[in-house]
């Protein structure tokens, strides 16, 4: 523990953030403005997610942090350490054991339960931002449900490329009302946005919090004749042979050799523990030896 308050933020600030979270849960997909604090890590590095985590963590929680699906990427390590130091909560790399998971760019492969909270770090919360730069105008568009422009963008993609050319941060419509940016997760993850757990999204620099309550309808925008398709590399994981998980592509030599492995490191390790071995993998026990 340290001289700071539990989970760094003072109780007043946490209360203010919790109010924003509750409002977000009450209006799924709506971006709630909140008075984001200056955190001891840079804006754009997860300050929104960190503030949301700080507001929901209790001393009994078990916390997991992933970045790109992995627990040991530098930013994940840094955020996990921050809460170890300021909140002293238990930490884990196992998705199933965590009660709060903070993530950047991925949704864990394993289905989350009703007693779990997933906290997303969000760089640009406004799905209409790159179509309309003015905040005043985009807030009005949300209020009046004027989303035609969003489909114009998808139309332009198809007319130019023959397909919807959005691979991540793929826009969704929540509960038939608000168009929402699911944060830069690959579109492969979009179907998982309908889940049992609570999903909270924090954008620190842009001062917005939004949420998806459990079992809320989340529809990826598309056309009837160009339906949304969650895609991944057409391979199996070279370590654990999983065919249903999102894969990272690694360049392994200077002759174009490459391998594919699960981006969700916990998922991959679990499968290997269970005895699955991929094309370039070794049995789990040997690797640990």
């Amino acid at each position, binding site marked *: 523990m340290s001289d700071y308050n539990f989970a760094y933020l003072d109780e007043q600030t946490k209360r203010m953030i919790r109010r924003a979270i509750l409002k977000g849960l009450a209006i799924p997909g709506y971006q709630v403005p909140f008075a984001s604090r200056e955190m001891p890590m840079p804006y754009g590095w997860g300050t929104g997610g960190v503030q949301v985590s700080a507001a929901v963590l209790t001393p009994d929680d078990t916390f997991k942090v992933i970045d790109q699906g992995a627990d040991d990427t530098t930013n994940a390590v840094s955020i996990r350490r921050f809460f170890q130091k300021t909140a002293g909560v238990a930490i884990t790399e196992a998705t199933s054991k965590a009660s709060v998971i903070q993530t950047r760019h991925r949704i864990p492969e394993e289905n989350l339960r009703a007693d779990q909270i997933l906290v997303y770090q969000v760089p640009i919360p406004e799905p209409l931002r790159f179509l309309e730069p003015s905040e005043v105008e985009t807030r009005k568009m949300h*209020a*009046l*449900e*004027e*989303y*035609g*422009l969003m*489909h*114009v963008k998808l*139309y*332009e993609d*198809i*007319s*130019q490329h023959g397909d919807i050319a959005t691979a991540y941060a793929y826009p969704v419509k929540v509960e038939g009302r608000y168009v929402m940016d699911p944060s830069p997760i690959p579109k492969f993850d979009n179907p998982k946005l309908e889940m049992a757990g609570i999903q909270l999204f924090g954008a620190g620099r842009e001062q917005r919090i939004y949420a998806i309550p459990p079992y809320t309808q989340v529809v990826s925008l*598309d*056309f*009837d*004749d*160009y339906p949304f398709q969650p895609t991944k590399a057409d391979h199996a994981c070279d370590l654990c042979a999983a065919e249903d998980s999102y894969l990272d592509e690694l360049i392994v030599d200077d002759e174009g050799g490459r391998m594919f492995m699960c981006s969700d490191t916990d998922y991959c390790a679990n499968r290997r523990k269970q005895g699955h071995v991929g094309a370039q993998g070794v049995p789990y026990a040997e690797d640990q030896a």
Partner: protein
Amino acid sequence: MTPLLQVENIAKFYGARIGCTDVSFDLYPGEVMGIVGESGSGKSTLLNCLAGHLTPDRGAVRFDTRADGLRDTVTMSEPERRMLSRTDWAFVHQHARDGLRMNVSAGGNVGERLMAVNARHYGQIRDKAIDWLGRVEIGEDRIDDRPTAFSGGMQQRLQIARNLVTGPRLVFMDEPTGGLDVSVQARLLDLLRGLVREMNLSAIIVTHDLAVVRLLADRLMVMKDGHVIETGLTDQVLDDPQHAYTQLLVSSVLQV
């Protein structure tokens, strides 16, 4: 018969200066009303008040809505008014770039209004865009080009297609032929006349060009210094003007 639009005592002031005042008229379905006058006469202010771009200081603009019949669009909520302007209303700007998305393809420009009212089939949207580009004499092969690559006349025709694609019940036009070369104007006018007849359009057209109203308008309103000084059937007003100012206008002594 219920008028499509019922305008009652509209007034708009800019400080002490009169934008327009005491304007009342009814527009019936299928009718085209022309509003003429020199620049500064208040005709554009009036049009913007009617179309909901400006809030008038006085008066009512009642539109015959599909659901509830005549409703005052001045006091209606902004979401309702915006809904009208992307469904039953259309607005053709003088400068095509004000009415088009210049960084979106011609097909996307025409398709936007369809998508705004929940068209979700790419193939059908595209077919409809192709059909409408054809109607305004833009080749199908230009569908994926951006308006920046179009001539001024083509841009204006694209703007008209974009506005008419959802079959609006009322079209506002602000100097639709202004800023175009004379030969281009003639072709556009011809096209507009065809569309007005074919679609039985109801429209309000503001212009300083008497040739435009002679060709398109059933009725005419002449404005000067914010006031309506003469109204009547187009031929009547143009062939037998009563007000001295209209007489000047018609005899082209006045450079307008």
